[in-house]
């Protein structure tokens, strides 16, 4: 009996547990109300189905959530990821064909040809470098000038879309270069290519934070920045690293987005994704005040949000109206996570478990 209570406690304290419970609940809802939700087909060498769709569409959110987790772990927040996504998308697409930015789509048909001015690897590298630079800038403001993270990143959030417009000269750039499509639409071994990107970035972040001391430093900076400084941690560089990495993740997100919709719109690329990313991290049980974090839990959180969205679409709820339901889910989950609710719920389940065990003992 004592053992079962202990394992329940361990389970409850595991960060991945609650997000998975929520995810399971939504899946259960789908199993009942959405016919064919779990059906996966094998067509043209790819897997097709709602679940695969969630994996593909959720990839951007998962990437942003990975970066955001590190930032939130330091006690900060990055509001600029949506704008950085736009910058990434605009940088990459404008390099494919700069003429489109100057003259727009109405120009000669040969501009719509399948060619690129810059090699694919170079434009990806440039976009990612620019975005890491954006993150670096946020990190500088936060760590060196000591500006509150929310405001420091607000600057780039407000100005970033303007900068992205500047890059594409106010045009919406359409991509005609087909190899670029692969990033967001391609399939590898039957699974979406984006899935592999997420796994790679996750592994990178996981190795960085769990196989080196950086993860520990991040948590320590998040719990008490001053104390970390006095214990010999270079808290400024740790913060700088977190923001830079977050910008890098947003950059990949922007590439996937622009590749997926085959265009770059500075106004709408990654619009309000920063909020979704923050929600994913909060779903994952990482506190906004910083400290303990779990990358895996954040990814599950991202999946929860994506699954909710897909479910609502499947039920025929208009895209914009779906946000209301998403807001309600957030509110419920956040309330469940709050200490009051947790204590109450934990007490309830434990007493129920005790009662159950007692009955079992009697029989």
């Amino acid at each position: 009996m004592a053992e079962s209570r202990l394992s329940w406690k361990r389970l409850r304290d595991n960060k991945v547990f609650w997000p998975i419970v929520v995810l399971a609940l939504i899946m259960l809802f789908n199993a009942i109300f959405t016919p064919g939700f779990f059906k996966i087909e094998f067509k043209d060498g790819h897997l097709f189905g709602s679940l695969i769709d969630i994996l593909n569409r959720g990839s951007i959110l998962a990437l942003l959530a990975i970066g955001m987790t590190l930032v939130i772990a330091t006690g900060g927040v990055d509001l600029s990821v949506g704008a950085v996504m736009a910058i990434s998308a605009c940088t990459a697409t404008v390099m494919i064909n700069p003429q489109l930015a100057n003259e727009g789509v109405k120009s000669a048909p040969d501009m719509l040809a399948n060619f690129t001015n810059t090699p694919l690897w170079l434009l990806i590298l440039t976009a990612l470098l620019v975005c890491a630079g954006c993150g670096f800038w946020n990190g500088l403001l936060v760590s060196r000038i000591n500006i509150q993270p929310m405001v420091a990143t607000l600057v780039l959030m407000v100005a970033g879309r303007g900068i992205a417009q500047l890059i594409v000269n106010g045009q919406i750039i359409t991509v005609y270069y087909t190899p670029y499509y692969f990033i967001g639409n391609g399939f590898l071994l039957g699974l979406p290519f984006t899935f592999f990107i997420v796994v790679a970035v996750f592994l990178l972040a996981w190795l960085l934070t769990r196989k080196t001391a950086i993860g520990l430093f991040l948590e320590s900076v998040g719990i008490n920045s001053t104390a970390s400084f006095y214990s010999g941690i270079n808290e400024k560089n740790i913060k700088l690293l977190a923001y830079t990495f977050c910008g890098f993740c947003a950059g990949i997100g922007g590439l996937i987005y622009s590749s997926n919709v085959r265009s770059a719109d500075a106004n709408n690329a990654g619009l309000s994704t920063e909020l979704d990313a923050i929600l994913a991290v909060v779903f994952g049980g990482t506190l906004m005040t910083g400290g303990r974090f779990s990358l895996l839990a954040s990814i599950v959180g991202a999946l929860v949000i994506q699954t909710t969205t897909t479910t609502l679409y499947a039920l025929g709820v208009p895209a914009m109206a779906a946000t209301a339901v998403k807001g309600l889910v957030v509110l419920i989950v956040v309330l469940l996570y709050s200490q009051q609710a947790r204590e109450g719920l934990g007490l309830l389940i434990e007493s129920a478990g005790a009662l159950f065990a007692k009955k079992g003992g009697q029989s």
Partner: protein
Amino acid sequence: MKLKIDRKLMPLLVTILVLIVGYAFGYSQYNGMRQPQAFFNIFIDNAFLLITSVGMTFVILSGGIDLSVGAVIALTTVASAHLLEMEGWSPGAVIPLMLLMGTALGAAMGSIIHFFQVQPFIVTLAGMFIARGTCFFISLTGVTISDPFYRQVALYQIPIPFFEKAFISINVMIALAVLVIAVYLAHFTRFGRTVYAIGGSEESALLMGLPVGRTKVLIYTLNGFLSALAGIVYSIYLLSGFGLNALNLEMDAIASVVIGGTLLDGGVGYVFGTMFGVLINGLIQNLIMFNGQLLSWWTRIAIGALTLVSLGLQSAFAATRRRRVVVER
């Protein structure tokens, strides 16, 4: 002789200076800006922003944040347009109902923030999603308001004495009244002092025996009320309601408050300063409009840069002020 200026006032003074220099620049460059009406138009175009920014000032002064204001404004415009046009309600019923709705939303968010100890950022983010989404449950498309009362209010011009042909709208009068009441509320009442105290240090305020919980709930309630009021003013200004109205307005409001010299940490700032933040926002839009060659997205870059400047000033002048946040799980 050394001029002594309170350090807290410096960011605000710089903002006012930028406003004057910016306006003088526009005055010298563009013919259109020499009309007195150009100045009053800034107020007319930004009355709703001023109202909601005033509410935001209280929230930020208390060390919190409210991301839901833009969505609440949108919800107010959609709901009132729908009730007026589709349901045929009279404005006399719609306006109080809308104010009640905003107040209730604010009170609900404030209560969750206080009683469940959830960060304001998350709660108001959820509130924003709910309000924004509800707009589209009411109406997926924009609704034009043709109610005679709204039209009359929208078209009514209050002449300005000493300036020929210059006028302001009723919206501006509402916004200015809100500003005056808010200044009184912030600096001359017990509620206002408690707001500053909570922003300075919530723990100290609690230990001093101040009603922290009640005040926190009240702050968000007040902000909800002002958002709804801003929403009504906005629907009068636009004479339509649409769920994508006032998108990202919360960020404009926060930027205005910060440019107006309020510290985002809370505890330091002036409600009056927020007006200058809003005016700068309007001035930049005006300058870019009168220039005619620059595209509208320069507004965003300029506002971002200005926010950065006032932040730099704040951290330079308030670097000595250290705040220890004790985080409890």
